[in-house]
């Protein structure tokens, strides 16, 4: 492979020294953008998403894996899916999830007595969603946490979180088409995991 050296003259030409040709080229470029954007349909090259316009829903533009404000999913009977396993609060790097467990009664798993997320502390990493074994917590609302008047308003409890939730289609107890139906150890991606 040969190395070629491109010699660049640092000597400024007369045209460079009076600036005007370069300035004119610059002006023509910006003027072209100006007229294209003002006089053509759909504002030419402007591809800004018009967030805030009445007929523009920003959710349509967010990717599927966008992480928004949390929500808690429901079971078929409308109760919370969460079994208070503490996975999410353990994995949370911001320590913003606070869960008090209670007995659900009968043979069933635990349930959260209170499930509190401090959205001001949340770093929106999405680890809680990944850690959740039973599809109880999700961040797929496609909504940002809205501004609040007091800090207390930004601390969401179980009722707030469940208000956004819907019935999850995943089968409770590991039956059904979810990732737990296959052995995680069989997945080569987990082979290096020493935990």
């Amino acid at each position: 492979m040969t190395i070629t050296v491109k010699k660049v003259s640092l000597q400024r030409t007369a045209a460079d020294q009076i600036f005007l040709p370069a300035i004119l080229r610059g002006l023509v470029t910006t003027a072209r953008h100006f007229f294209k954007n003002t006089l053509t349909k759909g504002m030419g090259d402007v591809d800004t998403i018009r967030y805030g316009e009445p007929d523009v829903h920003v959710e349509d533009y967010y990717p599927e894996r966008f992480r928004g404000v949390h929500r808690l999913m429901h079971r078929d009977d409308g109760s919370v899916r969460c079994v208070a396993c503490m996975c999410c609060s353990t994995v949370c790097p911001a320590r913003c999830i606070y869960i008090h467990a209670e007995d659900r009664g009968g043979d069933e798993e635990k349930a959260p007595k209170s499930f509190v997320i401090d959205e001001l502390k949340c770093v929106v990493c999405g680890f809680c969603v990944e850690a959740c074994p039973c599809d109880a917590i999700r961040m797929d609302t496609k909504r940002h946490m809205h501004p609040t008047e007091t800090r207390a308003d930004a601390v969401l409890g179980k009722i707030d979180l469940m208000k956004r939730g819907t019935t999850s289609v995943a089968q409770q107890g590991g039956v059904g088409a979810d990732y737990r139906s296959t052995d995680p150890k069989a997945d080569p991606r987990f082979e290096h995991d020493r935990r």
Partner: protein
Amino acid sequence: MIITLLANLRRAFGPWAALLLLPSLLTLSACAPDPNAAAEVRVQVEPGELVFHPDTPPVRVTIINEGQRPVPAQGFRISGNDWAAFSIVEPLNPRMVMPGRSMSFTIAADAPTFKGTAVPSVVQAEREAAEELDPEAYREGQAVLEFNVAGKEHAVPLRFEDPSWIITTLLPGVLKVMLLVMGFIMPLASLLLWQERKQSAMMQDRVGPNMARITLGGITIRLWGLLHIATDGLKMFFKEDFIPRRAHRALYTLAPVMALMPALVVFAIVPFGDALCYEHLFDVVRQADVDQCAAGRGGTPLQVAHIDIGLLFYFAIASLATWGATLAGWASYNKWAILGALRASAQMVSYEVAIGLTIVGALLVYGTLEPHALVHAQLESSWGILLQPVAFILFFTAAIAETKRAPFDLPEGESEILGYFVEYSGMRFGLFFLAEFIEVVFVSALVTTLFLGGWALPLDMFGASGFAAPWVAQLFFTVAGAGIAATGIAVWRASKHAQFVGASMLAIGVLHVCVAIYSLFTGWGTELPHLMVVVVGMLTWGIKVFALCWLQLLIRWTLPRFRYDQLMSLGWKGLLPLSLANIAITAIVVYALSAAGTITPAPAPGEDPATIANQPGAAP
């Protein structure tokens, strides 16, 4: 961009685009000479009415033969009430006026005759015998200049009056200030507040301010965010008015006013039209009538201050603008502010030198400092941008530097949190901001006056009495109409919010084309009422100024800023030597041409070569 425009035009009109060309084709066919023109006697007398004030020098009357054959002119006499007070300066013998030539003579008014103590004419004495006349006051007087050209009697009214200072100066002055400031500068400056943001957005492929809206009766008006002008103003008013604790309160308050005031005051010298004749608003007038009005007799020049030293006045006042910046920086008690103030004063002083010297070239060519006369001189020769292109570029550059905006925004230094108004907030800051935009408007107005022919349309196509010829009117209206219509359609298609505006523009454009077609059949366009001519002149001036404002914003958002040493070296080592060279070369060329007799130096004011010889007239 032209291709885009054409493509839009084609898409919008489709096969109908050919229809737009139709008026132009018909126009060409209408240019055939009229066979009856040869026999017709067409004589024009300028001015249509002579107005004298007590200190008026003799006024020239010109008889122009616009026909095809020589006409005899004879029987010059003055009759009417006060015939004795007026006199024809030279003895006039009957003479022939050749086709395309003119003859002129001067009429003088003997002012003391009209004083109360002097013997008035018989009719006047009977009428006013009972009244006590102030011996020092002038009364009004009237007479008629009569003469006979080619067997046809012509009568030119002569009028003597001594209007009070209020009528001649104060009232028109106040009206013109209101018209200029409230009707043009302030709306345009506030428009620029929004345009700066919107235009920069459009140039950078952003949306820009567009959310301010108002809902009236269920209809939401947005107008591309034009209402941001109002919201910005409101914001300025309601912000905290902060004064630093150790600031010099009086100077701190004075500084924004000192920045704003010179920017407004310098507009006094800018002519935004030729002249307005009060009593001939709906008549067809000639250039001589307008000149008479521009001299203040029977009208007023469309310029707030008609002063001989016009441009020197501009330099004097514009230098005061440095005070605003310097005081603001010094009074703020802030080291960053005073650094900005130092930069501002150094920059403005440096570039003032360049500004002054670049104009000298234009002054050498046109031989006057008075902007109104400067525009007239441009109309008689050609526009300054053609005669002095180097001066145009140098002046525009230096003038942009004077406005302290990018790429010369070192005094402000947004990116360095440095600037003479760092401590200012609320409406005090708003005043600085507004002053900056008023300076932008002023620079545009001055460049228009000095280099772009002021209120005139190019190529002498539009004179004091209307278009130069019917086909010029048709061409103008066709081209302007097609341009406006095409832009309107493009705007209409550009977005849903703009449909109404686009449709209005389209309607205006179609109206223009209709006017062109009307002119095609009637020959309309050469004789327009005076008021319409004045309005067209003011509109032309306004469009030129607006286009230059647009250009300045384009430059401001295209070029990066200079470093401070680059700024100084551009001013002192670039613009200054170039403007000196421009002066030298212009002086040599002007001297050589005037020595060779190609051009004649402008006559000194007051020196009136009263000749009755046949002169090349204004007639075609």
